[in-house]
């Protein structure tokens, strides 16, 4: 058990992150100043939220490519709501954002559950549909900082006990979903449905409904991230967070989430997101053009998925050896 824990994906990733920080710090010590690390974590908060949702979806052998479009659509909706009704309190806006995002996720979920349409097709389709709806709603216009109310913009930046609220929300989501995934029957159903759908069906788990809930959770987290994103950067427009869904998938794959379903952890997804977040924050510091970002996350996906596959193969061999020793 101790050896297993020592070689676990989470520990390896933590090591890789510390190594990465060390390399950057050797040339730019200011990067690992506590204040800057807080900034990096805060910048990564939306990615962490989306990666948790994506991880749950991938666990059930699905994929959600509509998360970034969902984020942008929900962000636009709450921003327009704020412009129309500046007096609306922030907690109500957050509740609306989560609900709205969840409804968008449910739309994906119903198509996957009730019509058994492959998730990649569903979410590729809804990805463009959501973006199109943003255009129809906003008529292509931007919503800028001066149109948004102060309370709307201030909430994620408010500092509590040394951390901005946005970081606290990401940490809260990590804790919440660690509990949900390990201590509730729904959480275990996600693993079962992806690990072996047939066995899960015989164990009384409705695989389709479990996938539906995975999409709903992913949608709700995207909606929450949508409000946070729009309020933090104080802008909403059609192309907000375009292509971000790939970064989210990359974070999951780096975090050791098996793309074939059934295996992955909330901590892994968070560490995968942090790994990418540190890289994207470090690029300008070490004066590499931000245009490198896309190629780096692409390479990271390929390398991580290749590593995952070889790790799984090794595991299989070890089991065989143990079986040989046992006989």
């Amino acid at each position: 058990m101790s050896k297993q824990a020592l070689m676990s994906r989470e520990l390896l990733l933590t090591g890789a992150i510390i190594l990465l920080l060390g390399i950057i710090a050797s040339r730019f010590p200011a990067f690992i100043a506590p204040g800057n690390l807080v900034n990096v974590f805060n910048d990564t908060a939306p990615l962490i939220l989306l990666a948790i949702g994506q991880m749950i979806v991938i666990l059930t052998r699905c994929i959600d490519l509509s998360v970034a479009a969902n984020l942008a659509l929900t962000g636009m909706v709450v921003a327009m709501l704020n412009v129309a009704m500046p007096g609306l309190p922030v907690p109500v806006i957050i509740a609306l954002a989560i609900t709205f995002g969840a409804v968008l996720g449910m739309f994906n979920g119903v198509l996957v559950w009730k019509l058994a349409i492959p998730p990649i097709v569903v979410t590729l389709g809804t990805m463009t549909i959501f973006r199109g709806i943003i255009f129809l709603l906003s008529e292509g216009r931007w919503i800028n900082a001066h149109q948004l109310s102060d309370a709307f913009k201030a909430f994620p930046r408010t500092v509590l006990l040394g951390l901005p609220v946005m970081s606290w929300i990401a940490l809260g989501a990590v804790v919440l979903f660690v509990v949900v995934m390990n201590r509730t029957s729904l959480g275990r159903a996600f693993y079962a449905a992806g690990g072996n759908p047939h066995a899960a069906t015989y164990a009384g788990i409705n695989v389709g409904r479990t996938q539906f809930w995975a999409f709903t959770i992913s949608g709700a987290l995207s909606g929450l991230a949508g409000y946070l994103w729009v309020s933090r950067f104080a802008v909403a427009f059609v192309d907000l967070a375009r292509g971000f869904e790939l970064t989210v998938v990359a974070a999951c794959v780096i975090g050791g989430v098996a793309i074939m379903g059934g295996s992955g952890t909330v901590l892994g997804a968070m560490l995968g997101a942090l790994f990418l977040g540190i890289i994207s924050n470090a690029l300008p510091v070490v004066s590499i053009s931000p245009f490198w970002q896309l190629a780096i996350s692409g390479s990271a996906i390929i390398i991580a998925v290749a590593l995952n596959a070889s790790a799984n193969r090794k595991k299989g061999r070890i089991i065989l050896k143990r079986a040989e020793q046992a006989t």
Partner: protein
Amino acid sequence: MNDTTRFIPDRLRSPLEQRIKSWETLLLAVAIAIFIVNSFMSPFFLNAWNLSDMTFNFTEKAMVAFAMALLIISGEIDLSVASIIALVSTAMGAAVQIGVGTPGLVLIGLGVGLVCGAFNGFLVTRMGLPSIVVTIGTMSLFRGISYIILGDQAFRGYPPDFAFFGQGYVFWVISFELVLFAVLALIYYVVLHRTNFGRAVYAIGNNPVAAEFSGIRVARVKFILFLLTGLMSGIAAICLTSRLGSTRPSIAFGWELEIVTMVVLGGVSILGGSGSIPGVVIAAFVMGLVTFGLGLLNVPGIVMSIVIGALLIGVIALPRLWERWRLQAAKR
């Protein structure tokens, strides 16, 4: 997946009935209907030159869609095609800057396309990685390389004779691209429906294990299909770059979605194992007619993307809803 009991007819349909009730016939009817509606909606639609312009909406995408159809029938997918187009275009643009002529540009275009396809094929067939993730990865890697090379700049200055591929006309209103589209459609029709290789593609899509045991070299066939997809993306990139006359890293952004939609609309099962080239050809015309018709009515491009997204989900959802309704009717 839930429906283990399927509706089994008590007799086979006659060949004529089969042909009439086929997906391709339905699509053709849809295409004709859209054509008629369009000609009533806009006075500018029924014009030989306008219709010729319309074909540019789909020819380049359809070229990639042919190879993608074979890939999806074999049970794999390639989401990196639009990024391959971007990388090929960037490579050709870079070659222009050092004075490479048109024949060299074409060779570079085809070569880079093949290399990208080979890279995908290697990762999927040699490393045994799932193609969805691999090509999501290469999708950002290939376009990422274009961004590294170009940043916010653009390559221009293609030689004048290079313009023929995207802007040239073979005869009257028949463009070079349209002829190329027709020739490639014919080639892919023969390859998929008239050769052993085509049968192997179907066999792999239906049951890769059984195909392996029947003596089909599954990994090699799949590798060739990835190569073909890369090559077709290269050809499409040559046509598109020649038509636009410049290269930006955002070139062909989002095309992978439209290409997959075209293939699925053409009746290819997204789960692999069935589909036809005539279906994809008609689907290409349907999509071209829809986007052109909406364009004539001044509908902005992003709204068309809603139509395309809805089309993608709708063409898969509707037959399933229909099947379910028929099942329930049969049970009663």
